[in-house]
């Protein structure tokens, strides 16, 4: 593969740095979007950024990434404002408002792009990379712009940490504390817009929303602490961005955005399965253990009941007798109980509660 590489190390380094930067910012800010149940607001912003890119180019004729990013941010933000306005002034719900504005803005963006493409000068070439992203076109200046904007967003995040935390978990409580929650909410949307706009050139408008959701959803499985989740989401984002970008730079005809999304989603899948405590595997093991424990307690209780019913000195009972009460093979449970010293096996193959076993039953 390396022989086919049109990239030297320097270019690859730039690409990886760029993709990692967007991953860090999107992951960290996505944490708040996901906790606030606004995962799909990111979808609206990223689709609505497209007409901004086209408009910025149309008005300035420049392809500087900063200008295009500003244009994208403006239309992205405008779409969220429209969604909020529709929800507040009509009976149309948020889901429909999001659906309307994301698709309509995107449609207008496509109209502008196709219209630009049909103009005689071909100078607009390369704007399509904002659809599905093309990491290979990242330049050093682009990465510097992305890093600067991202750092600014992260600084605001740190400065407003407490307010954003309250917003994510209990905004009504925040309002009673005298915090201006609506303003904080607008700031969060603004930060999300920055995070998304940073990724447009690499991941593309169609899929950038996924970079907001996936790292945060993966990080959520590993921790219950907001700080740890934010850092972890940033790390997952960076990992997905870097891996996806390298893969798409190395393999021909592998669009960057989709590749990054597939990597990020794989991280989510692994997290859902393997995370300690919350993960599905851990959960299955735990519930199996609980079932077993319940089974042991039941068998112990059965022996105690048999002992009560049969008067006289305890002689123990056959495993089959207990098994008949449980309609199951209780031998493994009895062996386990014996290992724990709660029952003992008599020489004639009966099972008898030990004193510890009896006290265990009365305790239960």
């Amino acid at each position, binding site marked *: 593969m390396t022989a086919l590489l049109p990239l030297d190390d320097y270019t690859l380094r730039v690409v990886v740095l760029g993709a990692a930067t967007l991953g860090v910012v999107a992951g960290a800010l996505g944490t708040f979007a996901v906790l606030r149940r606004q995962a799909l607001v990111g979808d609206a912003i990223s689709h609505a950024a497209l007409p901004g890119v086209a408009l910025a180019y149309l008005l300035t004729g420049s392809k500087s990434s900063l200008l295009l990013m500003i244009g994208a941010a403006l239309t992205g933000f405008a779409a969220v404002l429209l969604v909020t306005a529709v929800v507040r002034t009509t009976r149309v719900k948020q889901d429909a408002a999001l659906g*309307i504005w994301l*698709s309509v803005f995107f449609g*207008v963006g496509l109209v502008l*792009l196709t219209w630009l493409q049909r103009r005689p000068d071909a100078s607009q070439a390369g704007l399509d990379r904002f659809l599905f992203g093309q990491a290979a076109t990242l330049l050093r200046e682009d990465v510097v712009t992305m890093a600067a904007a991202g750092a600014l967003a992260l600084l605001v995040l740190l400065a407003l940490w407490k307010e954003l935390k309250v917003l994510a978990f209990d905004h009504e409580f925040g309002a009673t504390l005298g915090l201006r929650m609506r303003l904080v909410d607008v700031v969060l949307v603004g930060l999300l817009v920055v995070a998304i706009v940073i990724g447009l050139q690499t991941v593309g408008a169609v899929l950038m929303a996924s970079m907001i959701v996936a790292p945060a959803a993966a990080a959520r499985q590993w921790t219950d602490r907001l700080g740890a989740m934010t850092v972890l989401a940033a790390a997952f984002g960076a990992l997905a961005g870097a891996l996806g970008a390298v893969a798409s730079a190395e393999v021909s005809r592998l669009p960057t955005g989709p590749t990054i999304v597939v990597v990020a989603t794989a991280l989510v899948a692994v997290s859902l399965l393997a995370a300690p405590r919350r993960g599905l595997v851990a959960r299955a093991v735990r519930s199996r253990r609980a079932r077993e424990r319940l089974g042991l307690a039941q068998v112990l209780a059965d022996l105690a009941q048999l002992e009560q019913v049969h008067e006289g000195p305890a002689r123990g009972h056959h495993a089959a007798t207990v098994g008949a009460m449980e309609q199951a093979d209780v031998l493994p449970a009895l062996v386990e109980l014996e290992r724990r010293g709660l029952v003992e096996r008599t020489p004639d193959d009966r099972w008898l509660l030990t004193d510890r076993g009896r006290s265990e039953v009365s305790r239960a």
Partner: protein
Amino acid sequence: MTSGQLEIIAIASLTSAACALVGVFLVLRRMSLVSDAITHSVLLGIVLAFFVTQSTTSPLLLVAAALTGVVTVALVELVTRTRLVREDAAIGLVFPVLFSIGVILVSRYAGSVHLDIDTVLLGELAFAPFDRVHVGGVDLGPAALVTMAVVLAVDVAALTLFWKELKLTTFDPALALSLGLAPTAVTYGLMSLVSLTAVGAFNAVGSILTVALMVAPPAAAYLLSDRLWRVTLLAAAIGVGCAVAGYWLAFVLDASIAGCIAACCGAAFALAWAFAPGRGILAGARRRARQRVDFALAMLAIHLATHEGRPEAEEESRLDRLGAHLRWDEGRIAHVVAAAQRRGLVVEQAGVLALTERGRRLARQAITF
């Protein structure tokens, strides 16, 4: 207008109508973004089905792709049910990855799939008339037109047959369940319809703009009426209107037809939002202005009635003193008094206001509940 243009408009209209019909129920069930998920993942279904059938027109393709839509919904539900991520995040996780896999397959095997990225995003409405269906040597019209006619017919038939079930499970799932109507089955039936429609629409307008057709016209219609059947018919009519207007807009601008149709959908919703009778922004503003006036008139009438026939009556009812008593500025006083006179609530005599019988009645009504 050439017959090609006519055919494109016909395809666009059928697509819009079909999308609007199923979209109404998505909007009412707060599941609009499921259309976003389905329209994206359908791409993967189309690509995979193409690998199997090696044809872009096989009806099997339609069915297989529609199945992917249902699978997507089931997958979202599966992820949500682990309770590890919430539903919005689950939607945001599932469809981008299915779409991504679809896009990757399209780019890697572009040569053999007959699909490219532009088709995925924009559909191929402009070229639709070139791909025709012939049965026994008779030209039945463009393949897309035939497909969409079938899809629309299925939608209309399903909606007519299961109208009662759809209506009840949409507005009161608990009652539907207690009447023995399996809301889950109805939901999955609806999802199958949405998927089928999305596959058809995908060919015409691409994946993302299908969302515009499924959500915007129904949402606009929802602002215009309170009766389900009227909302449904209106949504279809608005969709068709947007399709026709969008086509001509694209013709004038020489830009993407699908994009222009989406833009028209946005405009249609914005118009309904602004001007819907009773519910629009304008109607709301007018209502508030009227209520402001009514309230001021009632206040004036109550003020005059309170002091009527008492020693301070003249002082309290003098035009030049009213402002001080009611704490209103001059302009407001003049405006309200003029309105009160027009409605025959008060008469003025030598700078002093007196209530008419009508004014007294208003004051009485305003202070008794």
